[in-house]
């Protein structure tokens, strides 16, 4: 099992840089109007996104140069810290409420989302767990259940904020990792069945979720309320056509589409850059997926392999969910588009994850 240091995977590196660059441009374009309206400064979000992107790049360079085996040792303390943060954010007075969800921790201009931390730390923890207990993976009770227990804690805490999108993306990632690491297919199949029942119950329990589901099915049934976001998103994407209306020329960003620089940035991109732009984004994410899984396949050890696919999956799950939501291919769940959506802590932790992935790629089997 000799591993020797090599060069990082440049395709991933440049794909990520391209997504990041497009993100900065689109954040500016999408947010200029609402930034001007709300903060009297068109560059409000652009300035911050540039700072976050620089910090993200630094985080990436930092983790890229740290031997990823370090994370295996730190996995348990990190997940414990994450749980503490997730509990803290739920305490009234500690967590900051934005749009009805208590997701933010911090003060002044520095805020982080513990759920963003949780995405990465859960991947680190799962990789650690699956690598350490790979011999028990075939056993449901001894192998799968303990990991699900940890997932349940994290999932429950995040759902409490509430942030269903993030919770689902974490659950999905853990599920994929269980599959990759060799869990029995029928175990996972049963879990899926339970999950589907759970989702149905969750939907029936919260009327707003049912509304969203109906809205997804026919957004024009209630265009001013539940269907509003999705209709505006479709208007934006549809207006783009093949070549788009031109960079900076989005109309939907004129307060029709709320928060156009965060969860719905892909819609604005679709409007301004058209099918060319949206396809480019899909291609970049495909390159990322392909190289990410390639690193996973050629990682020098099981830990590296699971960790690489964990990071890749984590980012992909979010990307695919986001694009599916804004194209009305699945019900609305708030989830940002990795690399592109405005969002400080999310970007830093995603970039840190990419750094780890690149570090694994430096140590692949020859």
């Amino acid at each position, binding site marked *: *099992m000799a591993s020797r240091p090599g060069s990082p995977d440049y395709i991933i590196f440049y794909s990520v840089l391209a997504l990041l660059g497009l993100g900065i441009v689109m954040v500016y374009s999408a947010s200029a*109007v609402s930034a001007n*309206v709300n903060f009297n400064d068109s560059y409000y979000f652009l300035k911050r996104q540039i700072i976050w992107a620089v910090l993200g790049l630094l985080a990436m360079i930092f983790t890229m140069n740290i031997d990823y085996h370090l994370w295996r040792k730190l996995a348990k303390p990190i997940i414990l810290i994450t749980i503490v943060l997730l509990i803290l954010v739920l305490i009234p007075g500690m967590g900051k409420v934005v749009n009805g969800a208590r997701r933010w921790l911090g003060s002044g201009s520095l805020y982080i989302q513990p759920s963003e931390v949780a995405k990465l730390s859960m991947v680190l923890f799962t990789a650690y767990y699956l690598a350490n207990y*790979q*011999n028990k993976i075939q056993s449901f009770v001894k192998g799968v259940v303990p990991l699900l227990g940890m997932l349940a804690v994290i999932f429950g805490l995040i759902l409490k904020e509430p942030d269903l999108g993030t919770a689902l993306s974490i659950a999905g990632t853990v599920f*994929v990792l269980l*599959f*990759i*690491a*060799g869990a029995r297919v029928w175990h996972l199949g049963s879990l899926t069945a339970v999950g589907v029942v759970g989702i149905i119950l969750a939907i029936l329990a919260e009327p707003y979720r049912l509304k969203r589901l109906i809205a997804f099915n026919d957004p024009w049934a209630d265009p001013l309320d539940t269907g509003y976001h999705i209709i505006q998103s*479709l*208007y*934006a*994407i*549809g*207006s*783009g*056509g*093949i070549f788009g209306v031109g960079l900076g020329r989005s*109309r*939907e960003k*004129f*307060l*029709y589409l709320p928060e156009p620089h965060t969860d719905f940035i892909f819609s604005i991109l*679709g409007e301004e850059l*058209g*099918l060319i732009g*949206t*396809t480019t984004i*899909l291609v970049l*994410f*495909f390159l990322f*997926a*392909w190289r990410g*899984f390639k690193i*996973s*396949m050629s990682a020098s*050890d*099981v830990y590296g*392999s*699971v960790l690489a*696919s964990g990071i890749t*999956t984590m980012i*992909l799950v979010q990307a*695919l969910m986001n*694009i*599916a939501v804004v*194209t009305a*291919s699945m019900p609305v769940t708030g989830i940002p588009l990795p690399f592109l959506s405005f969002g400080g802590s999310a970007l830093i932790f995603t970039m840190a994850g990419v750094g780890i992935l690149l570090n694994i790629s430096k140590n692949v089997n020859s």
Partner: protein
Amino acid sequence: MASTSHVTIRKRLAVVLIIVILIMGALSCRLGYLQLYQSHWLSENAIDQRIRNIPVEARRGNIYDRKGQKLAVSISIESVYAIPAEIRDVETTAANLAAILDLDKNKLLDKLKKRQAFTWIARKVTTEQAEGVRKVDLAGIGLTEEGERYYPQDNVAAHVLGFTGLDSQGLDGVELTFDQYLRGNKGSIVIEYDAKGREIPYAVHRYLAPEVGNDVYLTLDIVIQQIVERELDKVMQETKAKGASIIAMDPYTGEILALANRPDYNPNHFAEYEPKNWRNAAISNAFEPGSTFKILTTTAALGEKIVSLNERFFDSGAIEVQGRTIHCWKHGGHGSETFKEVVENSCNTGFVTVGLRLGAENFYKYLHAFGLGETTGIDLPGEAKGIMIKESKVTPINLATMAMGQSIAVTPIQLIDAVCAVINGGEHIKPQIVREIKNKDGAMVKSFAKEGLGQVISNEVSVEVKEVLESVVANGTGKNAAIEGYRIGGKTGTAQKVGAGGYMPGKYIASFIGFAPADKPQIVFLVAIDEPEGIYYGGQIAAPVFKNVMQDVLPYIKN
């Protein structure tokens, strides 16, 4: 056993990658569907929710007289509108506006709360009100200039000009009949709005400039019109009549040189008058013309050569037709007289004889050729076509009374138009009210040439009738119309009005039709006075009006 699990991991990674590719493929299809197939529909809808169309009124064209005097102009006046989505504080806005514009606050509130892109608050406000609205500077409330019609000559030619409504649409007169030329084309500002109702700064999509309306040049001559108006006022005062009308026409071109009625109205404040004042009696009211109609009987008789000017008639004062006795207006009759004298004296029995001799077929041939029984087609709204007994049903007694201008109802415009044909050499022509239409640059859009409707009589007959009518003024009933130094032709008329139960006692229409110069008339006038008090003979009250008008007009048109 690292290698076995590595193999499993690779296999399963391949499965995951395939699933990812499938999902991405599905999303690509979805994007293609949205951005190619549904793109048009979605973008149309997206545009619809952002676009608001604010109409920009076109300035209405002016109306001039034949010499270019302004009779109707458009001036800009301000109107207050609201774009409800832009209003920040509906309550204060409504309160403020209600105070400035003197409106009901609650109604205003309802208006402002409605979900609509654009609504009028108050149209055509005063300068002070506009200034007040400008000062409070409320968000979502704006002022825009609208055209307000202004008639600088007030009542003058009101019945020809008509008036316009709040939206500058023509409602009566030339304003109505030539509305499509005058109104121009509305422009619009298409503005894209953001979701909060604010204008998207650089996105004014289109500005469709309004097209200024065309200018209409009437056939009226304001000088003649003013003389006519003056005389109408005078005669109304003197006779205490119910109404009066004067029409002046160029007999060779059919151009109306003046047209006025009493009662009248000021088109600047038309709404303050009773609608009956708006009525253009000269073209809308049919009346039994009485003796003025004898011009047409004379023309038909001479045209058919069933009588000559020197043929002798004997008027005993009455004549019997179908067992009914028709009296001449002169007790005891006129005795022996030539046909020329019959016309001069306006002798009823003479005309009855001529009418019966003419017969229904011949008489009707001329009546139709003169355009009676049909509207003249003048470009003014509300023209009546009069009442004429059907030729198939006409009896000798009808014929006898028609010959002297009874049992037939014509409008003043029909009558003067027929007389034009008599004196212009015999050609029936359509009366014209508009000479030309020009666009704002002065280029001709449409000009109205003389419209001939056929030859009714020969020039010789025309000359003969003119001579007779000249002697009516010189020697006969039309003496009061004579003007020293001018050759005047004309005919008086006095007709009892017909009501529901037959002729109405004491209610007459006194009239006079005259022209000058008698040999080659430049202008023909019709004067009709409806229900004068006291003296009601056309020769005594209508002929002097004609004289007064003609006295001022003749020197004017000579220049």
